[in-house]
């Protein structure tokens, strides 16, 4: 007989907290941690040193660790993991946490903390991390007893990924990491209090379908929630689109859930959305919002937002429903499950949709589409200046020619909006951008995290020359791990988006928005062991893009573009959807004037 069989279950085996932590991470399926060491987390780094199951990526700034984990999470659908030290390590991570909170990205962030007996004493590198991160996270924990550690880690992963995903902080005092405690396996018990509803209510689904079938001027407005709900949700969205024949628009965060090249897709909506998407939203009679949150960048002036429509809203987070906009049919649940339920109910419902009305609606939409709101003129003359839109258009065309799996991240500004408008996505999880918080400095670390998750894919950060400097130190991380990320800078020598608002709303007084004393990005790439390239005129553009994509190392491509270009179409803050400003291609633009019709109230908005 085996010895162990007759042994009574005696005292539980114990191990140091740091080992418990790594064991719990492994049990949660973690493969990569993005982190930066310091005194309070040395026991964890010691444990990392002594194992091989989990890979640690050493970033160069804690903010970048969180953005990298966001890129990893968003491109894989898994939870991203971050490890930082106490005090400044934790405070540096805060921007990333809020970014993940706003965009509903699942992150578990482990922060070091001073020993429990020192907490509250202003000890060296002590910060009230749970206090500081309370409004920056979905939830946070301070582990005060070793025996709670494993349970808290498992719970943190559950909370981060369940319901509406988000960042979770676990604050780990040093004595807990050193002290011995028993391990606890993942519990099969449901969480005591947090059990978000995922299955939609059948009655609401029936009401939704009745409303959809009665529509004469419908639209589907999809958001980041569809991406978060996984491939199944995107597939269901496509099926519903095909089945219904309805037009579809997407938020910035939702791009890729529905293939952009499909004729039913109207492009992005909102402040810099397409004319056709915004007009369709404004004039529709039935709106199906799935996984979007009626954000102010999308709705424009609330009391003029889609005034005549009856609205259905699918969201996993009940607090998103009826927050800004009253809806008629609220559906709480997972976007994928809800869309599948709608498709099933649609099939079982004998009502025939009004196809004649729908055809008329499409005629109207085609009229709006014919405005070609995204058109621009690119000179082809030798030495001609590069239009930023054209640079992205070519980047898109050439990556498509190559046929490689491509992931795009962005920084924040005009280039971000142009990327959303001109780069087209036909699969979910390929587009990483900071939507809710609008964090400059997001794109490079996000591309880095994405590249870690997809080593063979093409990972490109479409950047602005100002934003890229906010986390430029990550070029060193790229070099260390030989990550062939491509940084594609649309260098307009301005904080272009700021300059645009100053031009349109502040009498062209360009206060502090010029990118003075820029580094030489080609030399900068070189200094960071990467490859620098530059295109200053249109005849060089394609060659630089091709060389960049062919280069096996990390690249910074400095694309010098038109400094005066503005991002259109644009709904000025506080205006209605049918009150868009179109670009200079569409008659007298606003290049010399202010945004007419912008009220003081609108000026007060961001």
């Amino acid at each position: 007989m085996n010895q162990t069989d007759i042994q009574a279950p005696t005292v539980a085996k114990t191990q140091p907290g740091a080992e418990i932590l790594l064991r719990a991470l492994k049990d949660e399926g973690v493969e990569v941690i993005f982190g930066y060491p310091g005194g309070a987390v040395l026991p964890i780094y010691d444990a990392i040193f002594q194992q091989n199951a989990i890979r640690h990526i050493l970033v160069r700034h804690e903010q970048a660790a969180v953005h990298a984990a966001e890129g990893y999470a968003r491109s894989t659908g898994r939870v991203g993991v971050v490890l930082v030290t106490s005090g400044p390590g934790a405070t540096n991570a805060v921007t990333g946490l809020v970014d993940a909170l706003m965009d509903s990205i699942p992150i578990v962030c482990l922060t070091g903390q001073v020993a429990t007996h020192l907490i509250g004493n202003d000890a060296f590198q002590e910060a009230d991390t749970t206090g500081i991160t309370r409004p920056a996270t979905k939830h946070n924990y301070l582990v005060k007893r070793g025996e709670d550690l494993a349970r808290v880690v498992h719970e943190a992963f559950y909370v981060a990924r369940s319901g509406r995903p988000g960042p979770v902080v676990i604050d780990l005092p040093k004595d807990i990491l050193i002290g011995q405690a028993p391990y606890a396996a993942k519990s099969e018990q449901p969480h005591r209090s947090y059990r978000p509803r995922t299955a939609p209510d059948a009655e609401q689904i029936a009401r939704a379908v009745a409303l959809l079938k009665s529509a004469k001027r419908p639209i589907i407005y999809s958001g980041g929630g569809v991406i978060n709900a996984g491939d199944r949700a995107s597939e269901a969205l496509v099926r519903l689109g095909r089945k219904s024949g309805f037009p579809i628009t997407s938020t910035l965060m939702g791009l890729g859930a529905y293939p952009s090249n499909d004729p039913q897709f109207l492009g992005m909506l909102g402040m810099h959305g397409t004319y056709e998407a915004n007009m369709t939203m404004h004039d529709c009679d039935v709106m199906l919002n799935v996984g979007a949150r009626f954000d102010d960048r999308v709705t424009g002036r609330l009391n003029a937002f889609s005034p005549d429509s009856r609205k259905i809203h699918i969201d996993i987070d009940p607090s998103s429903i009826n927050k800004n906009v009253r809806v008629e049919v609220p559906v709480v649940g997972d976007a994928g499950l809800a869309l599948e339920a709608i498709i099933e109910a649609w099939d079982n419902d004998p009502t025939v949709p009004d196809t004649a009305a729908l055809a008329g609606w499409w005629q109207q939409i085609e009229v709006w589409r014919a405005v070609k709101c995204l058109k621009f003129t690119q000179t082809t003359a030798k030495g001609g200046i590069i239009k930023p839109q054209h640079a992205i258009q070519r980047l898109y065309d050439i990556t498509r020619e190559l046929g490689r799996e491509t992931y795009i991240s962005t920084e924040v500004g005009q280039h971000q909006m142009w990327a959303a408008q001109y780069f087209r996505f036909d699969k979910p999880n390929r587009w990483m951008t900071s939507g809710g918080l609008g964090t400059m400095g997001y794109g490079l670390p996000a591309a880095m995290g994405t590249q870690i998750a997809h080593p063979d894919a093409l990972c490109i950060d479409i950047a602005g020359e100002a934003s890229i400097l906010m986390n430029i130190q990550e070029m060193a991380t790229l070099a260390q791990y030989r990550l062939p990320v491509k940084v594609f800078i649309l260098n307009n020598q301005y904080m272009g988006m700021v300059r645009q608002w100053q031009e349109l709303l502040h009498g062209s007084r360009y206060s502090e928005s010029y990118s003075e004393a820029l580094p030489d990005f080609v030399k900068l790439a070189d200094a960071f062991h990467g490859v620098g390239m530059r295109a200053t005129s249109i005849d060089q553009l394609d060659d630089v893009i091709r060389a960049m994509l062919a280069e096996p190392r990390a690249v910074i491509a400095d694309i010098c573009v038109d400094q005066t270009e503005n991002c259109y179409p644009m709904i000025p803050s506080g205006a209605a959807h049918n009150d868009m400003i179109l670009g200079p291609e569409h008659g007298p633009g606003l290049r010399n004037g202010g945004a007419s019709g912008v009220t003081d109230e609108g000026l007060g908005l961001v």
Partner: protein
Amino acid sequence: MSTIEAAIRSATISVVVENEAGVLARVIGLFAGRGYNIDSLTVAPVDDGRGRSRINIVTSGTPMVIEQIKAQLSRLVPVHRVADLTQDGPHIAREMALVKVIGQGNARAEALRLADAFRARVVDASTESFVFEMTGQTEKLDAFVELMRPLGLAEVSRTGVAAMARGTRLI
């Protein structure tokens, strides 16, 4: 209409929470961060052996805001249940106040007489002061405090509202 202009209503909301560190800060932070009103807030463990506390909040806002408050509270991880006592049916709400009145002569006698009429109890007395204890609805306490003002009202300490549904209904 997309937005609604509606009358402000008052709501008494009870929240059952996991009795853990930081839970009150989460609730208060939610109200502060999102600009909701707190007219009164009470919290105490209501131990049924499961480590839970009950928070009672009196707040006010448009119906849409009140719905938002409830939804926001419900999605906090350590929150078990949220009940809108004002909306869900008849309920009782009580608070307790300690009211110190300092004075002599007629004013003092009048204070005592009014306290009696309001069924306030004298829980402390000196030759120049009384401390009254009074339990009741917020409005009744307000009225009593107002009456004491000209009679030497010196200090007030109130508990905030504890509330519960009438009848067999549970939160």
